């Protein structure tokens, strides 16, 4: 399969629910390319419009504006039964009056596939999701995890070009969810079908996806690989929603030239860090930066540190230790700062609550957030 051809193109899609007074903008001008054979995740908090976008791609909702292209063909106005896109519903929506095998063969029957082929595909799907033994059971005789597998097999059987999964793992318990995450990845590799996966669980998104789109309040904020999303968040919301982050407001920052792509940040003891930033970034107000807790180290010697403060809390987590620090501030406004340090075996130094420490980090680990965006 061509790795880089575009499976789904979302072009300037907006969705308004309701009319007049009660009109609600659920999706705001989203543009996005989803590649062939990709495990693509839509990540965002509850109510941000993930399901809305998925339902527009599936054909259950019409976009108020914009269009959806499947392999270059505009499908915005095709009904769901004419789109080669299948959905795994959050509630599974399995047919209660049919057996497992009948559920899986439903789509194939509707496509008028020959009987022999249907039989073959169904048994292939059953073995793919390890449900051969239970093929004659009814849906209410299955556990949640088994129902999940049937829903997957049913949606995969007609070999759609794109599979949509709406919070498919949310209803499962932790252990089963972990298992199904691996299972989903395996199925995606085995079938080579593009998966568009919806979740509000950032950890799930990071571990499973080839690429992630972060959505908040109907706006597409950032699209990128898990690495890019985690390490180079371009937005205050993305930085805070994905992983833990320390935000710092820096009041003394400067640019040597307004068009420059580096910014100079002043820290304690006149230390200056040179950090890359957007070219057109304005410095008319204080800027904020984001630093991941695990990119920070503590030192005893406060004089050489970028920031200083007092440890207020220490929690031990086996492989690492989390410190909560209250930074010294000139304005008197308390600001807490989180540090996560690996517990190396040779590490002799341990810090205790109440101790004064210095905080250091590297310029390349700082992410400048442009709040004016």
């Amino acid at each position, binding site marked *: 399969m061509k790795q880089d051809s575009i499976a789904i193109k979302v072009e300037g899609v907006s969705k308004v629910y309701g009319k007049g007074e009660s009109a609600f903008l659920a999706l705001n001008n989203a543009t996005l390319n989803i590649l062939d054979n990709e495990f693509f995740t839509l990540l965002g908090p509850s109510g941000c419009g993930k399901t809305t976008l998925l339902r527009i791609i*599936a054909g259950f909702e019409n976009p108020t504006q914009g269009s959806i292209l499947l392999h270059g063909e505009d499908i915005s106005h095709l009904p769901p039964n004419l789109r080669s*896109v299948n959905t795994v519903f959050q509630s599974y929506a399995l*047919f209660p*009056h049919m057996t497992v095998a009948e559920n899986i063969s439903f789509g194939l029957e509707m496509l008028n596939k020959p009987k022999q082929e249907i039989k073959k595909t169904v048994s292939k799907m059953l073995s793919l999701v390890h449900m051969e033994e239970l093929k004659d059971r*009814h849906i209410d005789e299955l556990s949640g995890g088994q129902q999940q597998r049937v829903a997957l097999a049913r949606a995969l059987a007609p070999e759609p070009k794109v599979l949509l999964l709406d919070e498919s793992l949310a209803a499962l318990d932790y252990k089963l969810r972990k298992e199904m995450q691996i299972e989903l990845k395996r199925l995606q590799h085995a079938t080579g079908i593009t998966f568009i996966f919806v979740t509000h669980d950032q950890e799930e998104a990071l571990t499973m996806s080839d690429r992630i789109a972060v959505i908040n309040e109907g706006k597409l904020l950032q699209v990128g690989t898990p690495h890019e999303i985690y390490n180079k968040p371009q937005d205050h919301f993305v930085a805070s929603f994905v992983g833990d982050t320390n935000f710092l407001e820096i009041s003394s920052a400067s640019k040597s030239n307004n068009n420059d792509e580096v910014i100079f940040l002043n820290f304690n003891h006149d230390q200056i860090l040179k950090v890359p930033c957007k070219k057109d970034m304005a410095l008319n107000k204080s800027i904020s930066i984001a630093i991941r807790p695990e990119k920070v180290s503590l030192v005893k010697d406060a004089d050489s540190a970028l920031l200083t403060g007092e440890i207020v809390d220490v929690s031990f987590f086996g492989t690492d230790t989390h410190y909560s620090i209250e930074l010294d501030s000139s304005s008197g406004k308390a600001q807490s700062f989180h540090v996560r340090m690996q517990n190396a075996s040779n590490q002799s130094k341990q810090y205790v609550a109440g101790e004064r420490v210095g905080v250091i980090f590297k310029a390349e680990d700082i992410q400048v957030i442009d709040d004016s965006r």
Partner: protein
Amino acid sequence: MDQNIQSVVEFPESKLERLKAKQRTIRNYFLSAPALIVLTIAASGPLFIMLFYSFLTADEWGGVVWQGSLQGWFEVFMRHDIFDGTLLPADAHLSIFWRSIKLSLVTTLLCIVFGFPTAYFIATRPRSQRSFWLFLVTVPFWTNLLIRTFAIMQILSHSGFVNKFLQSLGLIEEPLRLLYTETAVTIGMAYVYLPLMVLPLYATIERLDFSLLEAAYDLYASRLQVLRRVIIPLVKPGLVAGSILVFIPSIGAYVTPRLLGGGKSLMLGNLIELQFGQGRNWPLGAALSITLLVIVMVAMLFYVRSTSRSGVNHAH
């Protein structure tokens, strides 16, 4: 050894349990006595009286003579020729049986055809509007059956609305004969019993998980296939309940066939009434009533079988 000890230990307890259970059942019977009395005396009592009367001899001026006879039952199915006394099937009765069954089935079908979309429409309205629509469905119940039937007579009559309308469109020259036909009876019964189909259907459609329809639609089913493969199998209980509720009163209907069918479209209810009235043949009337009951019971059995079979399927 072990087992012995166990049984010794368990014995008194289980005996006590059994005693308590017995007390419970006695008390339960006692408490449900009013219901049992109503059921036995009020429901099956008249039935047994009917059964008993069907085996008595008719009195010439109505009522019965206390003398056993099979004449009533004989007359349900057979008759003697007026002239030569040869034995013939009671074709008048049999054609009325047949007509009753046929018109009731067509009525049930009509109620499904019109009731299903109606129930579906109501069940898919916003929750706040549903009770309004349900209220509209039940409005006809607010007027007397006779008045409603007279209204239908007006609509179907020679110079009624339907004929006037068709004439004004130029579709017909002469008024059609609509009233006093089997069609009129069927229309009338379908109109009267429609709510009995809509209400149980509404109840099942309302509980339908509409994401299943989306799932089917997503899996390449056309709208018709969604209806046939998903909606109908899932609302079957409501469909069956509605059909029973319409079929049973239809087959025993009295007022509607009497008024809309004229003398030519009699149904079982009219035939029975005739025997107790002008016919002055109470045993025949009683035997016909029991026959009607048997037809209804056969129909019920058929329905129960059809639902329980799908139930068995469901369990396995």
